């Protein structure tokens, strides 16, 4: 199976190099803005180097689809074999050189500390989606997942993660789509504690990637997805539902980079901040010099419901060639739309019911919850419980 994309993007690092970087790199090299220097509160992750490995996983209370694969502090658990899917355990000893990007201290610390991993290879198009859970515990948990999709095969993966407030979890997921392959990845990040998730997706010639994300806040949740369209006519569509409630922080990033010619990528996010939540919706659309004839877009819409809530949007565009089809972004951060609220109130809904509906529609937007079996209505009720009014 091809892995040219990975080698092209990331210079593999030895353990000695990682140790040096963990000691020397800051969490972030350049401040985000003068007024708000770091969108991610990196202090929440300071324990990642020293916190003891979590003794056992903590389950989220929400009912969800039955997972056939589970990563927890005690190891990888495979519930049942699925046709068309090869699963292998991987451990740090199996990874001689680290092939994920290392941009800051936490990337290096994760590369040195993760303990449980899985390699998934989609060899045939499966009948059902593969459900993979990664659960953190009260302590540190670190996971690494690699997924490959064979040429012409369409994979479906649901990835659910949760960490209790007392825990720190770092997760890396690398997915590689061979030429002509397809992957539908539904990520549900239920937040909770300090959670750092980094996904790297490499899409080769004529391959197609669909990402659905539902991400909630926590002590500090940093959820980042980088999609590299390296092949000719590679495609990606990323949709995200984001929520942050009282006392929670979420920094969500969706980046799409068109490196191959005639690539097509779009990312869109809907976010809602209830109570004094904090939500950052970020995204980069980049067309590199080799991405001639490509098309890229990013769109984000964040509603701030209450006094004390913070909603930030950072849509970025980098275009390195004049030979592009289109590159655009649009964002809005605003109060609940007056007309919609008026319409709903006029029909007899209470302010709380309006809040519930706006939260529910945001959560349902990406389709990730539906794929995970988590009831959006139940989650919306749960989320707004902490907010008065």
């Amino acid at each position, binding site marked *: 199976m091809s892995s040219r994309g990975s080698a092209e993007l990331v210079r593999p690092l030895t353990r000695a190099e990682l140790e040096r970087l963990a000691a020397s790199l800051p969490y972030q090299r350049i401040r985000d*803005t003068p007024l708000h220097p770091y969108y991610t509160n990196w202090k929440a992750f300071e324990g990642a180097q020293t916190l003891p490995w979590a003794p056992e996983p903590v389950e989220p209370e929400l009912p969800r689809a039955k997972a056939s694969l589970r990563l927890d502090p005690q190891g990888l658990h495979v519930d049942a074999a699925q046709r068309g899917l090869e699963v292998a355990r991987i451990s740090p000893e199996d990874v001689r050189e680290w092939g994920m990007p290392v941009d800051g201290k936490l990337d290096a610390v994760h590369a040195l500390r993760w303990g449980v991993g899985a390699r998934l290879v989609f060899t045939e198009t499966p009948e059902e989606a593969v459900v993979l859970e990664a659960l953190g515990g009260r302590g540190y948990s670190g996971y690494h997942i690699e997924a490959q999709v064979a040429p012409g095969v369409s994979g479906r993966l649901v990835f659910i993660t949760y960490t209790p407030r007392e825990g720190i979890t770092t997760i890396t997921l690398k997915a590689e789509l061979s030429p002509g392959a397809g992957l539908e990845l539904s990520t549900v990040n239920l937040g909770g504690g300090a959670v750092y998730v980094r996904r790297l997706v490499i899409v080769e010639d004529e391959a197609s990637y669909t990402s659905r994300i539902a991400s909630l806040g926590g002590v500090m949740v940093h959820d980042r997805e980088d999609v590299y369209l390296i092949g000719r006519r590679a495609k990606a569509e990323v949709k995200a539902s984001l929520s942050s409630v009282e006392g929670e922080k979420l920094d969500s990033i969706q980046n799409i980079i068109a490196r191959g010619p005639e690539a097509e990528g779009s990312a869109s996010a809907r976010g809602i901040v209830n109570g004094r939540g904090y939500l950052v919706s970020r995204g980069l659309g980049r067309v590199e010099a080799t991405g001639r004839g490509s098309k890229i877009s990013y769109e984000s819409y964040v509603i701030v419901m209450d006094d004390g809530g913070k909603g930030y949007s950072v849509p970025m*565009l980098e*275009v390195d*060639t*004049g030979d592009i089809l289109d*590159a655009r972004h649009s*964002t809005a951060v605003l109060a609940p739309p007056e007309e919609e609220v008026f319409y709903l109130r006029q029909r007899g809904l209470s302010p709380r019911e309006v809040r519930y509906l706006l939260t529910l529609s945001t959560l349902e937007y990406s389709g990730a919850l539906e794929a995970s079996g988590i009831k959006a209505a139940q989650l919306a009720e749960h989320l707004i419980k902490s907010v008065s009014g």
Partner: protein
Amino acid sequence: MEVRGLLPERSPEDILGYASPTKATVELRGKISRSLVEEISRVKKEPDWMRRLRLRALELFEKLPMPKWVIGIEEIDLDELAHYVRPEVREPATSWDELPKEIREYYEKLGIPELEAKLLAGVDVQFESETVYYKVKEFLRKKGVIMVPMEEAVRRYPDIVKEYFARIFPPSEHKFAALHVALWSGGAFVYVPKGVKIFDPVEAFFLIGRSLEAQFEHTLVIADEGSYIHFIEGCSAPMLKRYSFHDGMVEIYAHRGAVVKFSTFQNWSKNVINFNNKRGIAEEGARIDWIEGGIGSKITYTYPSTVLKGRGASSSSIVVQISKGPYIKDSGSKMIHLAPYTRSKIINKSISVDGGVNIYRGLVKVARGAKRARAHVECQSLILDDRSVAYTYPHNQVDEPTAQVTHEATTGRLGEDQLFYLRQRGLTEQEATSLLVMGFLEDIMGDIPFEYAAVLRRVIEVEFARLGGVG
């Protein structure tokens, strides 16, 4: 008023040619140190409070790190620059004839004397580190408007200067702001009294005359309650053998209900590294409008910003940047909403061609309590060939649930169908491209004073014509 023909419609290199040797009576060059700062203060015969302010800024300059996001400044060796150059002009002249011929000729070639006569209510002209000419029309004086070189304001109006100078844009903000305050020289001071509205613009024009020179002019505009002023800033330089460095600062304070328009037409020659620090504070119901047209320079960093401090204050920033050739325009705007019912609008248009780099960095911040604040940002970038690039980095930070911040941006090339349509109707490729480029900028031209829009339009046409691709 038709000013076409008055203002230069060519690049500064074409108009001004190579830098002519000019005499300097004082030249302070070399390592930036306490003794250099004290020497600048001494030769300028400054009061002690200003000397101390400079020294405090120097301490900050030494402590602050080099901003990591600033790209392309490796060439600058601050220690080899002439940080203060006093041209051979004893006092600022009030007649062009009083200026040395080689200095006067620069301004004549740029059309400043004619422009002054026909359009401007006041003018302050700086060559190297000092104002060499300034004149204010009588009706301005009668209305109580003060427009003087910054040094004169320090001497004659210390209380006003102390209240505002380096307080709107504090030197602690970044290394180049601190450097500016430590080494500032030149610039204009404008005070518009309560209720006075001046509809004819005033202008300050800055010219760098030699290689390895650093220019640090400081402009301070204070508009008292209910007043109106339009300040135009222009800058240029002849062809220089090596680079020069510009690190200017503009501070604006618009009191309740005042309106300040601040327009910059930047046309430095292609080896000037241009750093700008621009900020205004708008009180209740006041308005600050920034207009920026940037064509020249090797690298430009400019981010006009407004702090909307009073209820109902508003601001706009309209920026046009052209990057033609291997040059960088790093620009953007910041709007900080601190009060209820504040409004802001940012429009940024850029064209990159022939290896040009355009970067937009913007920030809209709505603080908690800025009820029903509204902000809108629009960025449009046009890339005319495969070698040029455009980057957009906007940050929208909303801490107030009743606020609304919207943003949209596009980056694209000229439409093939549009080009085909025009070619089909008999236009050459160059004519068609020129028309489309001007069309791209046209909607923004309406926001620029008519006279300057006409000139800017022509300068762009001529600039692109020389490339062979447009015009």
